[in-house]
């Protein structure tokens, strides 16, 4: 390394991105380009950062594969910050292998962490969990450890393991404090705050009650038969019937749960499930068919008895029935609730689940997107919708770990 590169890297490591930039602003040799790219990324100039890092990577010589691998990692992190998830994950995996081969553990870990974060953003949660489990977190820098714990917390929350998420966030907070990076600390605080916000409502005949994620998790773990209008399904304990793609059946289940322990009239069920106010004999016949289908699906959990005027839900083993609704009303709330499973949904699947038209769903999604409450990946027909991540992954601050460039 030469003197200005060293001085610039020293400034960058101390958090002085402008100072780092000033020292190498006019230089176009690969180490200078890399430093300029990293400084630009820290200043939020992502497209420029990416271009500089790409040029730096191309400029390093055949014997400088370590420096080139570090550029690939930095570029991947910038792509993540730009939410550009379209590229192939292969260069990053290759860079991680190169870094391992050169015993650059910190940057190899960083590369693998970026790969795991990318999978979370893509909604490929099983793969992300597996990737995270393979990470050997020993000796991680505090900043990297904090991010690893944030990702773990996110994955835990997606599967409603709230205790695990809390434990991860506590570790993330401790690590963020050790790292001394304020933005990272703020991110952990934000993630912790979401745990205390109402996540759903419990609706009964008597009224409704806001529930935190923890209360939701407790409810789902209880003996009660939960009809879940957030995830569109019903179950108790680990038993679960998904009705997200059976909107009519779910509407019936929801209406029955709302009336429990009472029953619901046929007319009301028809109005609810088929959205019509003028029922005729064909609707009554169809109701019988649909109730029959629902009965078959839930037979291990509950019976659906016919009464003189309609139907009543009777859970087995004397369980209680609880209706869980999204934290607020409306199509948007239902969309956000559906997306909260962290999976990537297509517009048509969401429309199907909500029993609404694709046009309606698209409109609602567009509004939510401008509010930053949902995000999209892919284009046109392959476009998928996801809930925003808890940890916003705004921490480009990790990049100093990608130093030194040589």
């Amino acid at each position, binding site marked *: *390394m*030469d*003197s*200005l*590169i*060293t*001085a610039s890297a*020293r400034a960058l490591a101390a958090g002085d991105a402008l100072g780092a930039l000033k*020292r190498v602003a006019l*230089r176009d*040799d690969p*180490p200078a380009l890399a430093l300029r790219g990293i400084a630009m990324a820290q200043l939020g100039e992502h497209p420029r950062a990416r271009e500089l890092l790409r040029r730096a990577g191309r400029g*390093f*010589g055949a*014997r*400088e*594969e*370590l*420096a080139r691998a570090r550029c690939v990692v930095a570029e991947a992190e910038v792509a993540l910050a730009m939410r550009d998830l379209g590229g192939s994950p292969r260069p990053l995996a290759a860079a991680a292998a190169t870094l391992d081969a*050169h*015993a650059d553990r910190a940057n190899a870990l960083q590369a693998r962490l970026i790969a795991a974060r990318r999978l979370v953003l893509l909604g490929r949660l099983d793969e992300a969990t597996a990737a995270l489990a393979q990470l050997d977190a020993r000796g991680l820098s505090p900043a990297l450890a904090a991010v690893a714990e944030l990702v773990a917390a996110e994955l835990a929350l997606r599967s409603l393991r709230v205790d695990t998420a809390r434990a991860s966030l506590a570790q993330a907070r401790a690590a963020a404090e050790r790292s001394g990076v304020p933005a990272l600390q703020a991110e952990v605080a934000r993630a912790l705050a979401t745990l205390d916000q109402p996540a759903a409502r419990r609706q009964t005949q008597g009224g409704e009650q806001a529930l935190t994620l923890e209360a939701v998790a407790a409810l789902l773990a209880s003996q009660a038969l939960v009809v879940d209008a957030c995830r569109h399904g019903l179950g108790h304990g680990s038993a679960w019937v998904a009705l997200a793609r059976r909107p009519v059946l779910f509407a019936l289940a929801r209406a029955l749960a709302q009336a429990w322990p009472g029953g619901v009239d046929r007319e009301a069920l028809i109005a609810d499930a088929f959205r019509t106010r003028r029922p005729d004999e064909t609707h009554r016949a169809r109701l019988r068919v649909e109730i029959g289908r629902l009965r078959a699906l839930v037979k291990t959990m509950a019976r659906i008895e016919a009464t003189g005027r309609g139907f009543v839900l009777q859970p087995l083993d004397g369980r209680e029935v609880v209706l869980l609704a999204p934290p607020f009303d409306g199509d948007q709330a239902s969309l956000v609730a559906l997306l909260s499973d962290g999976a990537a949904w297509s517009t048509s699947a969401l429309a199907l689940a909500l029993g609404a038209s694709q046009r309606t769903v698209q409109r609602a999604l567009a509004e939510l997107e401008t509010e930053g409450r949902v995000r999209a990946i892919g284009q046109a027909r392959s476009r998928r919708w996801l809930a925003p991540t808890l940890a916003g992954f705004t921490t480009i601050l990790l990049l100093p770990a990608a130093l*030194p460039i040589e």
Partner: protein
Amino acid sequence: MNSKTATPPRRATTARPAEIVREYGPFDGAGRVNGVTHDGQRVWASVGAQILAFDPTSGETTRTLEHAGDAGTAFDGTHLYQIAEARIDKIDPATGQVLHTIPAPGGGSDSGLTWAEGSLWVGQYRDRKIHQIDPSTGAIRRTIESDSFVTGVTWVDGELWHGTWEGEASDIRRIDPASGAVLERLDMPPGTGVSGLESDGTDLFYCGGGESGKVRAVRRPKAA
């Protein structure tokens, strides 16, 4: 200036593994080693925010100067010279005071510094050059081209040696000061970089170890 027509007589380059005699550091609170020099008794190393001196026998740090050092360090018998950013500072080792400053010839792409025969010799890292400059003005007296990245320069017994470091490969080599032809090469183990080079005047070289934060003593081969 260099003679224009001098074509070097082709001499076989002898290459052998570098014999590392001893390692010093990493030093308390210090970062990467950017430059080394030797004042006859102590070894000086610039370690980012400081320049420190240690006793090569005990390995103990005996002195630290609060002075930034981003690349080569040199000693002229009285004063220290230190490359910081794009300048070379002349420093009183007793007080740490900066007595004089000249611009570095590479404008900040400098790496490696030594003093010999009334001149400073400055390596220009990726440009693979060594400049001989006037220590009072910084004017370039002549330039030697190398075929590798230059990361340290030293003169001993009329021999010009320089350190190279490119990616994973690093060596210490003796070159013909007239032509730049490589005469002799000591290959460092893979992954061991050389950042800063200085002879102790007899049979050892001291090499800065870059990110490792170490200074290594390497045996200088006996003249054949």
